[in-house]
């Protein structure tokens, strides 16, 4: 059922394309870095209810920006099926005698890798800007969170891509799915400042647990325990991979 050669080849393809598209890397890194640069420095001296006194806003923002980078890159990786459909390559993949699960897993492996490269770049650049982590071990735990965030949103991207016929709906997804997920996740401000209903919605957003977990791991402050965040993300990852594979398999590719 699961064919490692196929996973490998899909992963390799993703990586090769990533390395060749320098503009894409710069594009995805630019936004979180602008946020970090302008908001991080601009709001740094401000104290915000919900952020502990000993944590400056810049430190609060960095895990949020890593989460944002992961959200965007993973959703794009999932939705890239649409590009393949548009350029015809999807047919080449779908007519190959391999299980659809292997194809999906290969895409996810590729998306995780490219997403993590970007997330780690943001982390290193912010360390250069003065962000202090709690040591090398915390970075390794953070990587686990990056993998889970990536898996969740690549799966979600696949769900959307499998149910869309062309690129027409892409802007809708950008505006009504990706941005709300981002704003609800508490990437830029503590969620406790939000009205109860919005806070409720925020807790349906897997990214909330991803960013909270990253904060717990990297700067030692979080609203939920790291364990709870991990469990929530594992559940969302499994669910999204299942749904992504289901829809990818179900829909006709031409």
């Amino acid at each position: 059922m699961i064919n490692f050669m196929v996973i490998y080849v899909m992963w390799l393809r993703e990586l090769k394309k990533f390395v060749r598209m320098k503009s894409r890397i710069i594009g995805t890194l630019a936004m979180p870095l602008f946020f970090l640069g302008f908001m991080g420095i601009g709001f740094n001296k401000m104290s915000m209810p919900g952020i502990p006194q000993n944590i400056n806003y810049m430190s609060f923002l960095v895990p949020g920006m890593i989460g944002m980078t992961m959200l965007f890159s993973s959703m794009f990786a999932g939705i890239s099926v649409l590009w393949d459909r548009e350029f015809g390559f999807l047919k080449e993949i779908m007519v190959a005698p391999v299980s659809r699960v292997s194809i999906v897993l290969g895409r996810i492996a590729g998306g995780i890798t490219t997403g993590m490269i970007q997330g780690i770049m943001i982390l290193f650049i912010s360390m250069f800007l003065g962000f202090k982590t709690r040591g090398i071990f915390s970075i390794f735990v953070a990587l686990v969170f990056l993998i889970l965030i990536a898996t969740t949103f690549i799966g979600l991207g696949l769900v959307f891509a499998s149910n869309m016929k062309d690129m027409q709906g892409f802007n809708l997804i950008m505006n009504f799915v990706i941005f709300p997920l981002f704003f609800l996740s508490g990437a830029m401000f503590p969620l406790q400042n939000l009205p109860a209903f919005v806070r409720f919605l925020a807790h349906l957003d897997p990214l909330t647990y991803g960013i909270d977990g990253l904060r717990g791991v990297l700067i030692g402050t979080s609203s939920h325990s790291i364990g709870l965040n991990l469990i929530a993300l594992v559940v969302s990852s499994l669910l999204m991979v299942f749904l992504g594979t289901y829809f990818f398999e179900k829909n006709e590719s031409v």
Partner: protein
Amino acid sequence: MISIKVDKLIKKFGNFTAVDGISFSVATGELFGFLGPNGAGKTTTINMLSTLLRPTSGSAEIAGYNILKQKDDVRKSIGIVFQEPALDSKLTGRENLDIHSMLYGIDKATRKRKIAEVLELVELSDKANILVEKYSGGMKRRLEIARGLIHMPKVLFLDEPTLGLDAQTRRHIWDYILKLNKEGNVTIILTTHYMEEADYLCSRIAIIDHGKIVAIDTPSRLKDSLGGDVIRLEIGTGIESLIDKTKGLSWVSSCKQHDNFLDLTVQQGEKRIPDLINMAQAGNVTINSVNLHKPSLEDVFLNFTGKTIREQEANHGGHMKMRMRR
């Protein structure tokens, strides 16, 4: 041996029936053509046979495997060149071939050998390490044909293999296809809306229109079914006497006069022209010009569908374009 057996295949998209209950079979080693206008249902048929689309009803067997129940076996047995490019343009030609061979589980040593071999065949060896986005249309097409051959399929589907190519490249690709069919003993199913392509390549042709097969036979027998060649004579003087004489001839199956033209339907027209000239001279009839028209597949198509393929496309094309976008 039978390579493809199709049984009452139907595909509906909403209210529109793209393929309307077609049945046919193709023997191993045949070069079988689907001829019809755009929108006739050729690509939809190929997509069903290659497991990309689920038929609404009906079934088919490819190399002995059922397209509904044994998808992976069908997929292993076929190679396909799609109508629209299905290459990853951000990868090089070689990388596209590499990915393909890995998807088909070909081991490293064989992969290397086969890729070099097919690149040689389509004369792209020196362009293999260039990104596909820099390829011309003809090069892309050739790369796709090469890709379809790497895993040595038993059945090769070519959906409009020369669409939009210049005459020289087309000729080139035709020669590959014939060579493949003969030397590789690959069963080839080809769709086309070019008459001359179907005529030149195919050992047997199915004429398809509005999702139905209207005729199926060898190109020469399809053309013969029209009754023969038409010799058109332009007569100076003595047309009546010539009509009288030709009516007595056993090899003239019909004789029509309009103005000073005489249309004679005969078998093997080129051999009858001298006879006619001699007969005219003997009877003091002056002939100003002679024109021989051999029936083409275009005439066959016209005969079976009542329209030329171009008229059919004008009626149908827009509708199909909309379908393709979905």
